[in-house]
Every structure is written in structure tokens, then in C-alpha cells.
């Protein structure tokens, strides 16, 4: 296999070897069902309790406020649909933003078809939710505000504390999709007034198929997955014990080295961004220049299309992603890039590179060199670039 430079850590991350190791015994040795009564199942019960405690501690929550789910999408679905159902007596209005993940947006659209009203807040050019717009959108019948902690495409971190305060002031539930942020930036659910929070294991070097939803005590949302008495009867189904163990271990390790990891990623990120913007013409950075996830770089290159760029990068062993329509199977480019005001043709030429602490400066240099050649090559065959050059030379 050729050398792979993996720059798609917002899509998923490598499971840490220590995490995989911690999980192993729960497949082959401690395979008992945690709900069973015999001693043989005790290690499973204890492991779940231990993971729950680790996670609760990591966000300043109580252990009975952490509910394990199959991942971020399930957590988002649960929080929003169940809150809508539980609080519909009070009202049927929900506020979210235009740049949420589809797990939130499509859930909101689903509710709209069932009699709920949803306000999708605009964001500014950096992808930050405008607090004044949020305040204006609040109505007497608003029951839920759902704003992501950090955006998965452009990395912009939202003013979560301020949003939480506004929600609290108005007595409205506040849910945040923290899938990209949890264990990457410090989060305290009390300081930020978060009532519900979604997270996913595989974004923090943990396993796929496991996540959690934090639900503050007193929030009266009911079960979403009906079944047995697991997770205090709120999430049926035999626990994914190895997954829960892996998530706990990943969270523990990620919390321990969060600061140094972020510093290392930020250095590499800014080095990459600096070189790209300096050395490639007609390139821009999407998202907030500083208030962004430490591992996220998102560019738009004019006159070319993202999927072509991705395939050529792939041929060099570089894994990236794009908000191009052609990578999503629809004809529209990323809703996030459109929401920050990019015109369609520029949004089509976006490239997201999300780093990890394992990347090196040499890899960034390699990527920039390849990228320069790829951009030049695609522009040389782009009718949009041809028109641009002709227009400029005619002046």
C-alpha cells in the first residue's frame, strides 16, 4: 500500500491502539450480558459504570446524565425528536442554524412535516451564529434551541456559553451537537448552560458505532429506542459493551492530552493554511480564521471543482474531503459553504483537510506541493478560468 497522508479526521479518526486493546477482553472474555444476574456479567456492568463516570467527569456532568447511544446521529435524533414530543404542549417552535449537520437539519425537517415550526438562523461570513438573530427568533412557543458546538466542515466554534445563557434566560431547552468538539475543546455543561449534548466515539480516536447523549437532570424527554430497561429505561437494547469501554478509554486519553494535542494541531494547521494562501492564487480560507477547531483547514479554490481535486489528491495518497456537490450525490454544494455566502461555483471548489497529532510538517509540505500542481492542472482545463483570464487580459 502506498504511504497514506490521512487528513480527514473530521470524517473519522484512527482508533488508538490502547483503546482497541482495552476493548478486546469485552469481546472474548467478558462477553456476558450486562443485564444478567450472575457474577460472570459483573465485569461488564463495572466497565460500563466506569466509562460513564469518565465521560460524566469530562464535561462536569453527573453519571446518571450520560446515556450511551450508537453515535452522534442517534443522539441528535433522540434529543430533538424527544424534546419536541415532550414539550409540544408548551409550543411547537424550534430554533437551529443553517449550518448544522444533516443529523440535526433533516430531523428538524422531519418535525416540520409534523406540525412543528423551525427557524434556521443565518450565520455570518465566518460561520458564526449571530446572537442578536437568535434573540429575535425566540417566541413564547419556542421549546428548543439546537446549535452545534463546532462546525464539521469549516471548524468554526460557536459562542456556546452565550447561547446557553440566552436559552436559560428564556427558559428554553438548549441542545448542542458537540460531535466535532467533544474531547477536542474543554466543555463544561454547567458553565455553558447545556441541557443536552451529542457526542460520538469515533471522532476522538475511539470506536465507531458508539456515542452518548448528555441529558440534564430534570429535562423530561422520554425513550427514543424502546425496549429493555437499559440506560435507565431510556435507551433500550443490550449495551455495546466493547464500544462503551472504548469510548471511555478514548475520552480519558483525549482529555489527558487535549491541550498539547490542540497546540500541535494548531501549529500544523496554521502552517498549512499559511502556505496554501500564500502560494496558491485565488484561494480562500473558509470559516473563522482563529476561533476554529485546532485541526480544521477548509479552503475554496476558484475555477475548479472539488471532486476532481480529491481524486488527484487520492492518487498521491492524500485523504481529504470536499463540500462539492459531486461528493455528496446531490447537485447542490455544501449548505454550510452556501450559508457563509460563497457563490455556488466557489463552493464547488472547496477542500477540507482535518489533521491529527500524528501528522507532520513534512506531510504538510508534501500536500502543499501536490496541491499547487493539482490546482494548476485543473485550472488549465477549466472553462471558468479561461474566461477569467481572457476577461482580465482584455482590460
Amino acid at each position, binding site marked *: 500500500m502506498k504511504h497514506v497522508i490521512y487528513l480527514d479526521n473530521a470524517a473519522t479518526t484512527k482508533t488508538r491502539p490502547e483503546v482497541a486493546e482495552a476493548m478486546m477482553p469485552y469481546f472474548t472474555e467478558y462477553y456476558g450480558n450486562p443485564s444478567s444476574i450472575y457474577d460472570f456479567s459483573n465485569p461488564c456492568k463495572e466497565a460500563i459504570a466506569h466509562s460513564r463516570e469518565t465521560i460524566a467527569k469530562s464535561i462536569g456532568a453527573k453519571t446518571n446524565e450520560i446515556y450511551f447511544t450508537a453515535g452522534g446521529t442517534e443522539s441528535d435524533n433522540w434529543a430533538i425528536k424527544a424534546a419536541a414530543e415532550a414539550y409540544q404542549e408548551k409550543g411547537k417552535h424550534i430554533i437551529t442554524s443553517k449550518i448544522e449537520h444533516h443529523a440535526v437539519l433533516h430531523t428538524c425537517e422531519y418535525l416540520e412535516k409534523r406540525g412543528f415550526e423551525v427557524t434556521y438562523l443565518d450565520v455570518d461570513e465566518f460561520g458564526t451564529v449571530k446572537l442578536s438573530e437568535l434573540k429575535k427568533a425566540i417566541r413564547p412557543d419556542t421549546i428548543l434551541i439546537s446549535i452545534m458546538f463546532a462546525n464539521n466542515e469549516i471548524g468554526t466554534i460557536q459562542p456556546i456559553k452565550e447561547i446557553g445563557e440566552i436559552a436559560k434566560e428564556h427558559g428554553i431547552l438548549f441542545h448542542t451537537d458537540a460531535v466535532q468538539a467533544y474531547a477536542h475543546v474543554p466543555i463544561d455543561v454547567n458553565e455553558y448552560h447545556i441541557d443536552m449534548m451529542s457526542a460520538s466515539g469515533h471522532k476522538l480516536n475511539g470506536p465507531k458505532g458508539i456515542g452518548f447523549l448528555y441529558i440534564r437532570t430534570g429535562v423530561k424527554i422520554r425513550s427514543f429506542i424502546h425496549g429493555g430497561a437499559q440506560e435507565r429505561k431510556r435507551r433500550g437494547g443490550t449495551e455495546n459493551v466493547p464500544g462503551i469501554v472504548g469510548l471511555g478509554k478514548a475520552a480519558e486519553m483525549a482529555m489527558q492530552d487535549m491541550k498539547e494535542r490542540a497546540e500541535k494541531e494548531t501549529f500544523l494547521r496554521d502552517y498549512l493554511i499559511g502556505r496554501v494562501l500564500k502560494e496558491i492564487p485565488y484561494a480562500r480560507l473558509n470559516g473563522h480564521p482563529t476561533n476554529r477547531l485546532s485541526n480544521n483547514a477548509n479552503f475554496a479554490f476558484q475555477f475548479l*471543482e472539488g471532486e476532481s481535486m480529491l481524486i488527484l489528491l487520492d492518487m498521491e495518497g492524500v485523504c481529504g474531503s470536499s463540500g462539492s456537490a*459531486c461528493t455528496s450525490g446531490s447537485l447542490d454544494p455544501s449548505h454550510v459553504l452556501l450559508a457563509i455566502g460563497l457563490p455556488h461555483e466557489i463552493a464547488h471548489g472547496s477542500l477540507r483537510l482535518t489533521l491529527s497529532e500524528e501528522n507532520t510538517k513534512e506531510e504538510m509540505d508534501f500536500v502543499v506541493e501536490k496541491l499547487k500542481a493539482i490546482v494548476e492542472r485543473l485550472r488549465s482545463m477549466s472553462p*471558468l*478560468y479561461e474566461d477569467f483570464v481572457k476577461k482580465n487580459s482584455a482590460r
Partner: protein
Amino acid sequence: MYTEKVMDHFEHPRNVGEIENPSGMGTVGNAKCGDIMRIYLDIDENQIIRDVKFKTFGCGAAVATSSMATTMVKGKSVQEAMEVTNKAVMEALDGLPPVKVHCSLLAEEAIHAALWDYAQKNNIEIKGLQKPKSDISEGEEDEEY
């Protein structure tokens, strides 16, 4: 995701470029759906396509279909070029993923647009050729979920 032929034409596109004072030129597609194709034709007095060049802004499939379409019309008469349909281009590429079928339609449209330009300039009629649409987006409806 793509066949070997698609990858070959994407990696080594044939006939990329421009033709100065072309006999016909056509640009189709739109930036909204992310594909724009431009075809240049050099056609001799016997209505044979002597040379063809293309430029494409688009995904891998868009580049490959433009490239393949140009190889299929080169050396043909303008009437024969009308037989280079999107289906023929797709077959020549050993198929495209379903979401990319519109790219092959675009290639056919681009050839037709260039032929139309040529026909207009020379006041001739090419059988079966209609005025090209400027926008080929398919108007797909989202499925209910």
C-alpha cells in the same frame, strides 16, 4: 467508484485545450450543479471534424465524459457526430455511477451546442440537431424521508 476507463480519461484527458477561431463552439452546464463543459470544433469544408478540444469544470466523471466524447467525434462527419449520444459515451467508459449520469448528458449537450454554433454560422442544417438547452440540470425531486 469509477471504472478503469473513467479513471484513465480523468487522469489522462484527451483533447484538452482551446482552438483559435473554431468552426463551432458550445458551452453548457451551470455552476450551480457544478459542471460546465466547453467544446471547440474545427470542421473542414467536407463537414468532417478535423479537430476537437474541450475544457471542463467539473467532477471526475465530467472530465472523463468530455474527454471520451471528443475522441468519439474526432474524424467523424458532423452528421456522424450526432450519433455520439450520452449512452454511447457511457458505454465507451464501461458505465458511470447513477449519480453521474447527468455528466454524460452534459457531454452530449456540449457537442450538440458546438455543432449548433457551427450550423448557425454556416447556415446549414444538421439532421436531428436542436437548439441546445443552456441548463441541463435534471430537476430531480428529493425523496420523502
